[in-house]
């Protein structure tokens, strides 16, 4: 053996080990924040998550106890309002991109959707504030839902388009060859085949906006009480967490931790649901 060759061999082995180790460290760093978030939330928030938290309204300052039921319900209401805008527009727009539009119009639409996906969420809050809150002279659940819906549209649009393009053309042809109209083919054959993927896209969009705070600051505004009038300011979990976390009261801090824990668990559950759905899809298409 040449001595130089042996040297090179050792150097190669070192480089290989170095790269392996670097990627391993990076992988650990990816997982660490999730672990830290869960650990921190559990340590600080678990003790305050109680039955009362899910059933009671916030108590006045200085009074111990109370919960965030209004914020939990408010967040669900805002998600529902956002979905009313985001799901139909996003899904139909995605179907248009995948099934109808011309190549040129499509590349433009796709570009616009990608730009919209990159718009900071607080911008949506400001835009809706200018367009709705100022015009109707008041913060409202509607305004908050609109801001969230606008964020959902490009997210759902792109995932819907992608899963619809994955449907093999043979199914469209088979359906059209039976004399089934184009729109019925798209609804009953193409979208049905892609339905799990579409639902997955919707759930991911909901998980994304469920924790949005910035777009709600100037729109839904938050509320310490029950509100069943959607034209009035409404509570939302992220807003309540924000308000409580920057307050000077220890009791409110504990509530904020608990709220954050509930929010993260909720979003985590949606993501688990997505995993289950996508796993079934992979299995059935195999």
């Amino acid at each position, binding site marked *: 053996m040449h001595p130089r060759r042996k040297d090179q061999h050792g150097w190669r082995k070192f480089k290989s080990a170095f790269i392996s180790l670097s990627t391993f460290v990076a992988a650990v760093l990816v997982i660490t924040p999730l672990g830290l978030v869960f650990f921190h939330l559990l340590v600080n928030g678990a003790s305050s998550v109680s039955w009362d938290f899910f059933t009671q309204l916030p108590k006045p300052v200085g009074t111990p106890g109370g919960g965030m039921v209004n914020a939990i319900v408010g967040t669900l209401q805002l998600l529902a309002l956002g979905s009313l805008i985001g799901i139909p527009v996003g899904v139909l727009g995605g179907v248009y991109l995948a099934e109808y539009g011309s190549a040129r119009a499509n590349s433009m639409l796709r570009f616009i959707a990608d730009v919209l996906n990159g718009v900071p969420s607080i911008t949506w809050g400001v835009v809706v504030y200018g367009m709705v809150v100022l015009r109707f002279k008041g913060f409202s659940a509607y305004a908050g839902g609109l801001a969230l819906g606008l964020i959902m549209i490009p997210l759902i649009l792109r995932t819907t388009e992608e899963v619809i393009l994955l449907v*093999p053309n043979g*199914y469209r*042809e*088979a359906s*059209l060859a039976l*004399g*089934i*109209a184009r729109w019925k083919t798209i609804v*009953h054959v193409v979208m049905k085949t892609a339905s799990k993927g579409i639902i997955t896209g919707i759930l991911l969009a909901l998980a994304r906006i469920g924790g949005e705070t910035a777009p709600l600051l100037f729109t839904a505004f938050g509320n310490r009480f029950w509100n069943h009038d959607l034209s009035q300011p409404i509570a939302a979990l992220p807003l309540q967490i924000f308000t409580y976390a920057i307050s000077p009261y220890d009791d409110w801090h504990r509530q904020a931790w608990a709220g954050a824990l509930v929010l993260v668990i909720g979003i985590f559950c949606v993501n688990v649901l997505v995993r289950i759905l996508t796993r079934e899809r992979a299995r059935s298409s195999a």
Partner: protein
Amino acid sequence: MPASDPIVLETRDRTTEPTPDSEEMTLTFEVKNLSIWYGEKRAIDAVTLDIPSNAVTSIIGPSGCGKSTFLRSLNRMHELVPGTRVEGTVLLLGENLYGPSVDPAIVRRRVGMVFQKSNPFPTMSIGENVTIGLRLNGVRDQKFLNERLEKSLRMAALWDEVKDDLRKPGTSLSGGQQQRLCIARALAVEPEVVLMDEPCSALDPIATAKIEELINELKTKYTIVIVTHNMQQAGRVSDYTAFFYLGRLVEFGPTTKIFTNPSDRQTEDYITGRFG
């Protein structure tokens, strides 16, 4: 060079052909001077051809000769490719398929199609796959649907194999069964014609034999036009054969004549395997 004048079937010449009891042959399709363009490219060049009823007509020719395009022009499926243009006429039992007020969906209901790759809908059961064409065209009567389901599966020679599994997914069947399911699905809307685009090219010999046997049975009720790459298959299943080359119809006639005594040199070269 391709023959300048396509040879058109002389309907009165057919004394030895499959329906000896009828003097006059009925024609399902009368194609006159049909040309089809994809954008600038002419895929079919002035084809004139009559397709007889209740018989199997096979279309053969080398890859890219326009045989699939021709087949698809018979139920206007080629229109799904953007930028197609058609000249000439195609008459289905005397009616122009390309008339200005003709809905392609109606054409496709009358002229069914089976594809190269079996494509049962993955979200639907065996039964749903068969009845989907009827259901999406507005049929609600469950009794009627069930009757048609059994009838179609029987005609596709699949009923005995799947009658206890109608609720299982269509994609759970074997390749040959899936193709017969697709045939049943096409038959359920009661078309007058069944077009088949290389229906056996993805199947093993046993499954192929079953489909060919089925084609032979179906021709008593349907007119069948089949595109095939397999010369032996054309010889086995068809009554008439059309040979296409470079978008033109080179020769058309009874299969026995095309295969034993072709009039055109190119047909002979292709059939004997000298090119293609």
